């Protein structure tokens, strides 16, 4: 990697996102500066409409800023073609959603293997790595289970297995425990924490649940499209060299 040891992995500078025109203009993000370093586990919190999800979408290459610059390892994202962005999403980012977003009537194994299809991995290797990823989230033996045969917590584990199957460096989780009860939510959070500590995956997690946010050494608080709190300076960056 070309990255300077101390340089940020992801960096936002003066990023703004504006929806609508004229009188109806809404500043979802209003000039954000943010650096995320490799190995961090970051919770992004704030009330709904504070811009935390928009920031997450921009960081995950699903949306583009209206103003400002987003760089990954110093490379400006706005210079990249949509196909390159797709490859980056496939190889360097993993996504976990509140709604799980698994394919219905499809086995856990096939759901998990989906990113590998787009990475051009052969069928046998796909099955092997998907089985491995399912084992890593504690679902060994449930490869053939269909989405509707799994509990919410198990579905979210399948979704996490899908997000890590292509060995990404960054995991983006949007309210990963939002549809789960507190016991299952805690299990999911422990799993995410383990992926961060054991495998060194950088994790960014949007949440409005304080209990979830407590798992993260660094917490960033959003309000009205601005960052109003960041614990980065107050506590040491956990797991940066793990």
């Amino acid at each position: 990697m070309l990255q300077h040891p101390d340089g940020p992995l992801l960096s936002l500078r003066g990023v703004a996102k504006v929806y609508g025109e004229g009188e109806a203009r809404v500043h979802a993000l209003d000039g954000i500066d943010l650096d995320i370093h490799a190995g961090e586990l970051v919770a992004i919190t704030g009330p709904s409409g504070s811009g935390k999800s928009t920031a997450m979408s921009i960081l995950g290459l699903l949306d583009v800023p209206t103003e400002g610059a987003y760089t990954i390892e110093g490379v400006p994202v706005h210079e990249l073609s949509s196909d390159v962005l797709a490859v980056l999403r496939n190889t360097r980012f993993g996504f976990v959603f509140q709604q799980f977003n698994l394919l219905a009537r499809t086995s856990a194994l096939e759901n998990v293997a989906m990113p590998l299809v787009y990475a051009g991995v052969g069928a046998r290797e796909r099955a092997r790595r998907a089985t491995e990823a399912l084992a890593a989230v504690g679902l060994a033996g449930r490869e053939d289970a269909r989405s509707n045969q799994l509990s919410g917590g198990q579905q979210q584990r399948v979704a996490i297995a899908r997000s890590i199957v292509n060995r990404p460096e960054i995991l983006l989780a949007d309210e990963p425990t939002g549809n789960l009860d507190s016991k299952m939510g805690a299990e999911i959070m422990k799993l995410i924490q383990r992926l961060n500590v054991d495998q060194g995956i950088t994790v960014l997690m949007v949440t409005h649940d304080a209990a979830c946010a407590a798992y993260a050494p660094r917490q960033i608080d959003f309000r009205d499209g601005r960052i109003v709190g960041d614990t980065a300076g107050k506590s040491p960056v956990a797991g940066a060299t793990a």
Partner: protein
Amino acid sequence: MIRAAFSLAFAALLRNRSRSLLTMLGIVIGVAAVVMMQSMGSGATAYIGDTISGMGTNMLLVMPGASKGMQQSSLGAPLFTAGDLAAIRSQAHDVASISATGNRITRIVAGPYNRTVNTSGVEPAYFVIRSWSAATGRILTVEDERQAASVCVVGQSVADALYPGKSALGLELRIQKITCRVVGVLEPKGANAFGMDQDDVVFLPHSTFARRLAGSERVAMFMVMATAPDRVDGAKEAITDILRRRRHVAKDDEDNFAIRDPREMQVLLQSVTGMLTTLLAGIAAISLLVGGIGIMNIMLVSVTERTREIGVRLAIGARTSDVLTQFLIEATSLSAMGGAAGVALGLVGAFAVARGIHVPFVVPSTSVPIAFGISVLVGVTFGVVPARKAANLNPLAALRHE
């Protein structure tokens, strides 16, 4: 990658099995119609060709009366004479054989059995012209003709009906007041182009027929064979010249006789077949169009329903082209499977129809690839719009779609 794209497409189609089947139906019907139409068209053409050539090659039929298209009015026109035939036989170039012919529908009786059939009086040349020989016994001879002998040859259907389970040879047959001896049974010829049984006939020497059945030595019509297929027109011309002169047709008057060429019949029948084929092709085209629109409609519904799935796929690394390919393959697979089923259905249908109406079952070698190719083309054409819609979705908007 392509294999993976195919398996993705099939998985998606299998998730909505009954909808996929119903969507295919339009294509199934269209392709089945294409295959049936081509098979039946070719079968009918082959059948017409077979039966027309079964009537004898290079053959012409000469009848009294003016010819008006396919209509024939013999009212008032005199019959031919033995002299007319003799003149043609001796003067007309390009004529190989000639046979006077007379026909009567008569009741025939043999022992306890009876039947109403077409009885023809013919000269021996008739069997040469129609290239028809005896299966058992013999055909009529020049000697039979000269003596006006009380002999006859019968078609296979007559032999089967009147002499069941035994040989007709040497047995008696009563045709109205004539009692004659069966000297031959002809080889079966089957039905003609109009579905009439050509084996349900009795042949007498023309002289016997003229004197004892028709009561007149005049010739009702006659059959001519040209020396070669390319001499048919020459023979026609020569016969026309001789007959106009002998029948005293004034220079500016129309012929008071008609020369029929079975090839004209073939052309006519084939133009009818061609028209029917075109009609069926039109129906098939409309059905394929409707089937294609059905596929497009269902694919558009599918794209809307699966917007979130598409969002997830884009989020985890599908490129625009991957999504485009997947939906295009889904649409094409639908139509191609419909096409395959349609080909099978069309072949079965064409076979059943061919059996039912006794025409040969012919599958033109091009029809199956063409029908299948059309179905694939329909899928690609009508799949493009939904596939583009899916591929151009914004990943974030697609993920947030409810």
